[in-house]
């Protein structure tokens, strides 16, 4: 009871801080345009049709700020896991059942000229778990997107027929403007250090803040979007794009070989309060099995995805739907022969098969009333080849049957008393985890034991 009271007092204090006059400002882009958050966001970070155009226009709409274009973001949360002890009785997720500052970010964001703009995010993770298993603060670069843009206007001076540009970013799909793609897909924030499934596709966040990508995009008649980018490990002149990453520990990051293609094609239509997008995206990457051994043969991952987004935005109702399906082909051209020979490459994977597949499906529906009160229901599923080498048994994180299959739903309720403050309650309900519903890890753990609740206060300034 005392714990609940303490959390309530903590959240009340934070709420008071957030709504006090000093906190009534809005982040850098809102200051640049003079517009409210809701002009660009259904609810941050999900974009409205105008928000998508603002991003594709290289963040150049509005006036360049005379002051330093900075913004701040902080998250304070509390979480709990249904069974937060492993089979040996050890705690799995640290710092549960207490309000914790989980992360704080500093943004440098804004317009540089009518043809250039962008943003750089630096994040302090207060609950980072180091290699020794200790919870220590750690900071590093987060999502970053810098753009150059141009426009071809019709002779009658009414229509931007071609909007085109270049993007430099450090997370594949970060540059995308539809929230059906992974980088800005749901869930928009996660419980810190939550128990995660054994694997995810490469394009689904596995390369975030480890790579540098340069790409060109074109948006024709606000209807057809095409992008082609190339990603490589963020080293050399791009090393600042992975600042703070653990690049020296084997297995700390993924290291790409050469330049790897990323593509995106989307058809967009807007009519009345409706907007619809149907698209495809994907990438093919060559990865050194051990990131500290960039001289070995490489494994190849090919991700091909389809996605869709529908939005209905009026005053006071907003309804949105996003869906994506990612199919990944994994070719262990380096790791499989090495494993077969009894000498896996460093900390690299030790697959039982020469080739595997992984499929991820995500579906999410959201309703907001007056952009103030909202509810979301999401469903997710990952299935893939059985590969005991990749997914061996092991307490909590392992798989008894060698499968990565994970499935569940995420309900979320949001309340924004002011546009730059979100209070949210989220719940992760797992029906299957790492291949099973009961005793999935070989140590007697059930998928539902990983169910997690998350109470979060998300503030931007």
């Amino acid at each position, binding site marked *: 009871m005392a714990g609940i009271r303490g959390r309530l007092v903590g959240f009340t204090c934070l709420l008071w801080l957030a709504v006090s006059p000093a906190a009534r400002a809005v982040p850098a882009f809102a200051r640049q*345009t*003079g*517009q*409210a958050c*809701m*002009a660009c966001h259904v609810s941050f970070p999900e974009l409205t*049709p*105008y928000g998508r*155009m*603002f991003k594709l*226009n290289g963040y150049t*709409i*509005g*006036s360049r700020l005379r002051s330093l274009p900075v913004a701040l973001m902080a998250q304070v949360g509390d979480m709990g896991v249904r069974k937060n002890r492993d089979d040996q009785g050890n705690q799995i997720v640290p710092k549960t059942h207490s309000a914790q500052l989980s992360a704080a970010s500093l943004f440098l964001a804004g317009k540089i000229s*009518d*043809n250039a703009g962008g943003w750089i995010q630096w994040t302090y993770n207060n609950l980072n778990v180091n290699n020794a298993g200790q919870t220590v603060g750690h900071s590093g670069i987060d999502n970053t997107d810098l753009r*150059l*843009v*141009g*426009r*071809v*206007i*019709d*002779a*009658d*001076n*009414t*229509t*931007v027929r071609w909007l*085109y*540009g*270049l993007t430099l970013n450090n997370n594949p799909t970060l540059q995308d403007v539809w929230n059906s793609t992974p980088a800005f897909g749901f869930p928009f924030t996660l419980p810190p250090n939550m128990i995660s499934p054994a694997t995810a596709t490469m394009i689904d966040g596995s390369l975030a803040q480890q790579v540098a990508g*340069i*790409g*060109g995009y074109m948006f024709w008649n606000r209807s057809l979007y095409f992008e*082609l*980018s*190339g990603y*490589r490990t963020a080293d050399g002149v791009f090393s600042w794009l992975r600042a703070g990453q653990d690049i020296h520990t084997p297995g700390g990051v993924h290291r790409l070989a*050469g*330049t790897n*293609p990323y593509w995106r094609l989307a058809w967009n239509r*807007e*009519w*009345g*309060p409706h907007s619809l997008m149907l698209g495809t995206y994907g990438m093919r990457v060559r990865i050194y099995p051990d990131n500290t051994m960039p001289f070995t043969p490489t494994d190849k991952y090919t991700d091909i995805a389809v996605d869709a987004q529908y939005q209905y*935005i*009026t*005053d006071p109702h907003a309804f949105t739907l996003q869906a994506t399906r990612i199919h990944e082909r994994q070719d262990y051209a380096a790791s499989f022969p090495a494993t077969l020979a009894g000498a896996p490459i460093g900390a690299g994977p030790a697959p039982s098969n020469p080739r595997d597949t992984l499929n991820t499906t995500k579906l999410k529906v959201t309703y907001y009333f007056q952009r103030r009160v909202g509810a979301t229901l999401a469903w997710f599923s990952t299935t893939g080849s059985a590969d005991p080498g990749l997914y061996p048994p092991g307490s909590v994180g392992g798989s008894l049957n060698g499968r990565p299959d994970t499935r569940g739903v995420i309900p979320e309720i949001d309340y924004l008393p002011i546009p730059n403050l979100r209070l949210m309650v989220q719940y992760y309900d797992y029906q299957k985890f790492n291949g099973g519903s009961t005793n999935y890890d070989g140590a007697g753990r059930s998928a539902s034991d990983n169910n997690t609740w998350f109470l979060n206060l998300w503030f931007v300034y």
Partner: protein
Amino acid sequence: MRRPFLLTCITTLGVALLGCGAYAATPATSKADAEAARLATTVCSNCHGPGGDSVSPLFPKLAAQQQSYLAAQIRAFKNRSARGEPEAGQYMHGMAALVDDATIDALARYYARQKPPAGRGGDPALINKGRALYLQGSSDHRVVPCASCHGQDGVGNGPIPRLAGQHSAYVAHQLDVIQKQQRKAPVMYGIVHDLKPDEIRQVAAYVQSL
């Protein structure tokens, strides 16, 4: 070191495209008109649509709007005299702050000369009732005919806005905020403060159909 072929291609393509720059084929009559055309096309059109023919009913159609009405509205946003309107603060205060007086007038000229938006049909029963209200006023004389100021065909006149072809949801919302006196329009408030919700929907459907 091997030159990354893909990056080279993308960079070359991008630089070539950026070199094209934005262009406008129609000669501008003045510096302000050129700036207005640039702003209307690259900024305003993101919400108000190409040439002011918006798609979303959250944003009014500006095409063929009365020049003096539009200039007065933009000035009201710029000097914050429209601060009571929720949408003014959410969208327009910041945008209006970007333009000087000459550009405001030029923007109004730009939109006034655009092709009028096409009317859009709807529920015939609703439109018929709206037509009667618009042309004849309410039968109990609570509400005067809209046509007496906005014109038989809804095109407006000088400071009186064009309504023909406007989004019905937008018109209904404006009547609602005028009734609530969130939008400062004393003359209109005197006329519409007794309009019932059903009548608002009817007249909004009718003007959209014009």
